[in-house]
């Protein structure tokens, strides 16, 4: 295979339930601050969710917000923040060579449910059905809203990949950069899923929706008392460039994308297959030309479901075994499951480890489930491990889609 262009992450824009910028988010992850709160949604009633508090009017007018979607708003916020964080002057680029690639778990459920409730008030007279329905629900909506906001002319669409989607945008952006089709990518993942009652109801029907009297303790991956998923909204888009371009403009580089893998279990609608997850992680390692023991930090996908976490823990043990300096953590314990945004947010929150050598913990582990025992799992308090040069970030989703990326410090 020919030598491929090296790709680096030079900007981070994010909206998380416990932080609206990378410094805020990181501070929450190091101080144990949860972003999960009480939440109420029609038909479901009182539950809990990860709700974002970013300033939606920072980059959009009230009319933009009224016309668009929450996922679009999140994407626009993250894109602008990423551009600003990367110190990019978009006017210096050919707008046709800037791509926008958010991963999404789903899109359109929120808007469709809303319209059905509106027309129900009028006896299902479809003259009350909104002309905004189609532009809001098309699968490229969040990406397209970014292009409208920033005046971009390049390829912009969403990567639908269930809960593995958060890595897909990053991977796709890197691929188009390597093909020379674009010069800059704004790529990651977004989710507005807390605004559809259907997702809560469906997880509840599967017995997979978390319940806890204290919302901040509801999402508890690897803990013996875990009982399901906390749904969250959020987003994270990275500015991605070729290494040579980033160096030429003197950009600060967060990390280099060293490798990745996306595969499928091909076995079940919802149940994870450890063989598929194992193959995905090993595929990402191979692509990064790294051995398992050369990964310093594994960012797990674990969603706080009884069966899913146990399967994933088993896979992590299989692949990383007794590696003495491979540490493991989880971000959903803080913010819940941000669906299409999860993988991107989870990677972002760990990027500072590459410079500060501190691994944020997974919180709410009061009693570690023996089935989820993983060597060097960092629980409840951050751990300074000295040096983190490589991170493997994994996300898995329904229909058996698995994704993993490996990032690390740039080597000369």
């Amino acid at each position, binding site marked *: 295979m020919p030598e491929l262009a090296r790709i680096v992450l030079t900007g981070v824009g994010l909206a998380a339930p416990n932080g609206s910028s990378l410094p805020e988010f990181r501070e929450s992850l190091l101080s144990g601050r949860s972003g999960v709160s009480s939440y109420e949604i029609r038909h479901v009633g009182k539950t809990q969710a990860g709700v974002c508090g970013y300033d939606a009017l920072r980059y959009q*007018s*009230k*009319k933009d917000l*009224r016309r668009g979607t929450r996922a679009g708003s999140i994407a626009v916020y993250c894109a602008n923040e990423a551009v600003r964080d990367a110190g990019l002057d978009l006017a210096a680029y050919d707008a046709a060579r800037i791509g926008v690639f958010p991963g999404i778990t789903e899109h359109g459920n929120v808007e469709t449910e809303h319209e059905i409730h509106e027309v129900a008030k009028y006896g299902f007279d479809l003259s009350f059905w909104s*002309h*905004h329905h189609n532009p809001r629900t098309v699968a490229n909506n969040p990406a397209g809203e970014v292009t409208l906001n920033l005046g971009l002319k390049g390829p912009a669409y969403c990567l639908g990949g269930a809960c593995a989607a958060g890595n897909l945008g990053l991977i796709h952006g890197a691929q188009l950069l390597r093909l020379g089709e674009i010069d800059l990518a704004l790529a990651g993942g977004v989710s507005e899923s807390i605004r559809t009652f259907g997702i809560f109801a469906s997880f509840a029907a599967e017995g997979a929706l978390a319940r806890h009297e204290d919302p901040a303790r509801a999402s508890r991956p690897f803990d013996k008392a875990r009982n399901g998923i906390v749904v969250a909204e959020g987003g994270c888009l990275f500015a991605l460039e070729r290494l040579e371009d980033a160096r030429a403009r003197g950009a600060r580089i967060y990390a280099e994308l060293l490798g990745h893998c996306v595969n499928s279990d091909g076995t079940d609608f919802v149940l994870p297959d450890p063989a598929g997850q194992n193959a995905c992680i090993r595929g990402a390692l191979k692509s990064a030309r790294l051995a398992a023991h050369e990964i310093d930090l594994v960012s797990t996908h674990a969603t706080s479901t009884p069966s899913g976490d146990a399967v994933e823990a088993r896979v992590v043990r299989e692949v990383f075994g007794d590696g003495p300096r491979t540490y493991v953590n989880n971000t959903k314990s803080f913010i819940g499951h941000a669906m299409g945004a999860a993988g991107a947010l989870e990677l972002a929150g760990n990027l500072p480890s590459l410079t500060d050598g501190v691994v944020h913990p997974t919180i709410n582990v009061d009693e570690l489930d023996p089935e989820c025992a993983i060597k060097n799992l960092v629980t409840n308090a951050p751990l300074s491990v000295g040096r983190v040069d490589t991170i493997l970030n994994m996300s898995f989703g329904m229909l058996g889609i698995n994704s993993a990326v490996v990032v690390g410090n740039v080597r000369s």
Partner: protein
Amino acid sequence: MTEEEVIQAVKDIIQTVAPDEDVSGLDPDVRLREQIDLDSMDFLDIVMELRKLYGVQVPEEDYKELATLASCVRYLHPKLSAKQLALRV
């Protein structure tokens, strides 16, 4: 609804559809789209709000009657005279 209330009803709807605009000083005789930023989708929103709030159906051939505040009053007052001004929410 009086004619003044019809003007208020239309202004309230425009404010909902174009929340960033100041509608207080709109000139009743100048086309709305020359005074504030309203595109065709916004216009459909105005028609939709009239339908939802007041049960008024504005057929496409009558859209031109909504060009100015004054023409709105001429067109809508007969349809709204028996209705109550909706409270803004």
